[in-house]
């Protein structure tokens, strides 16, 4: 926990330093459970001491970027993990927000703990205290204490992360003495498993998964790249893209709208899957589209601020596209 205090102090002092240049800081503060942190907006100097940063800061605060950029006059400071900064880069690359308006306060990341995994392990019990160490997580619930191995409880995206220590773009970088030490996993392992099945099996897999969807639209609302929420075609009466029925087929089509909208734009923060109340593995759908875009056009979103999304541009001769002849 010493490490944590250290990084918190660094964060607070850096934010106080730049507070004159920004009128609002978006960061993390203590949540209502030991398991969670809560996003907070800070517009007064006295509140800066509430800021924290630890291994539970899983939320992607870049989600607020687009909406705040329309509402707030003056600059906005944002506490970001290196992976979250990809979302800001992509938004800037598409011209949806202005780079000058944002002060990116990037904190070096030592891996993020997925609280959903802990809840799965201990069941839905009231948690009294939680201490995350380098090797073990000590959880105290009303039933007693339990010790969990830290390395199994990182968020999925941490297992293939290679930018934890190296923000692609930042104004203020706060180095973390803790480093991310995890066994690397293949990003597309779960996709490959699914693709080994036959077409019919894949179809029924999604039918079952998306049949559980209650269409709360949380996945859409949390996405940092889906800036179109207020004009979403799902809510149109004419043309009627989608009925209000929550059948598997309709839910699948809703996810397809998201996939096609995020083609070549998804920054793989995994927020859609985290907020899903039904635990549907929607992130697979997004990852697959990214894999396709990467194979066809060699592009990953959120890396380069000057690069254009591949579907918004073209080449007269495409090297990787083999057109099918039907004659």
């Amino acid at each position: 926990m010493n490490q944590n205090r250290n990084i918190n102090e660094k964060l607070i002092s850096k934010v106080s330093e730049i507070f004159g240049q920004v009128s609002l800081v978006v960061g993390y503060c203590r949540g209502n459970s030991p398991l969670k942190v809560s996003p907070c907006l800070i517009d007064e100097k006295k509140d800066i001491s509430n800021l924290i940063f630890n291994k539970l800061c899983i939320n992607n605060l870049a989600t607020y970027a687009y909406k705040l950029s329309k509402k707030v006059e003056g600059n906005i400071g944002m506490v970001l993990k290196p992976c979250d900064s990809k979302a800001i880069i992509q938004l800037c690359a598409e011209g949806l927000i202005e780079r000058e308006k944002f002060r990116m306060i990037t904190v070096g990341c030592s891996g993020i703990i997925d609280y959903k995994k802990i809840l799965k392990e201990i069941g839905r019990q009231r948690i009294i205290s939680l201490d995350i160490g380098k090797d073990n997580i000590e959880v105290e619930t009303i039933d007693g204490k339990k010790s969990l191995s830290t390395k199994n409880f990182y968020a999925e995206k941490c297992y293939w992360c290679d930018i934890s220590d190296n923000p692609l773009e930042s104004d203020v970088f706060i180095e973390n003495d803790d480093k991310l030490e995890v066994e690397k996993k293949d990003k597309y392992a779960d996709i490959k498993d699914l693709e080994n099945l036959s077409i019919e099996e894949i179809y029924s897999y999604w039918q079952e998964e998306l049949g559980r969807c209650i269409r709360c639209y949380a996945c859409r609302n949390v996405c940092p790249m889906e800036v179109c929420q207020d004009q979403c075609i799902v809510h149109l009466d004419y043309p009627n893209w989608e009925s209000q029925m929550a059948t598997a087929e309709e839910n699948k089509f809703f996810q397809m709208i998201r996939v096609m909208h995020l083609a070549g734009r998804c920054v793989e923060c995994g927020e859609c899957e985290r907020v899903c109340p039904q635990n549907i593995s929607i992130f697979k759908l997004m990852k697959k589209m990214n894999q396709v875009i990467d194979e066809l056009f060699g592009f990953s979103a959120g890396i380069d601020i000057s690069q254009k999304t591949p579907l918004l541009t073209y080449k007269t001769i495409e090297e990787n596209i083999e057109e099918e002849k039907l004659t």
Partner: protein
Amino acid sequence: MEKENKVKEMEKEEDVKIIAFLCNWCSYAGADAAGTARLRQPENIRIIRVPCSGRINPLFILKAFSSGADGVLVSGCHPNDCHYTDGNFYARRRLEALKEYLPFIGIDKRRFSYQWVSASEGQKWQSVVVNFVKRIKSIGKNEPK
């Protein structure tokens, strides 16, 4: 003569539904030319005319599949011949990405195809349609199992 026999054979088989999106300037005129030249084509194709292949949102195709189409065919001007200069280049990227994606949601990749047919290629249009219908028939209907 051979082609005509093929067509007759197909008509006996099960009725599959195919939605075709054709661009106004090349492929729609091409299909029209095929009709004027009285080239026989299978009747499984329902044509939707769009201003340009660049107008085709990949969601059109997915919507067609989710509403029960057995196959979707997209056809536009040849690359470099687009009436709007570059519409079909954008379309090519989108449609290729969609095509690679389809198997992942449980739709056979062969049910979807995009082709370039110009206004004078009535013959080509006929063979595209014949081959595509044949292919869809060999896969069968797109029914949930």
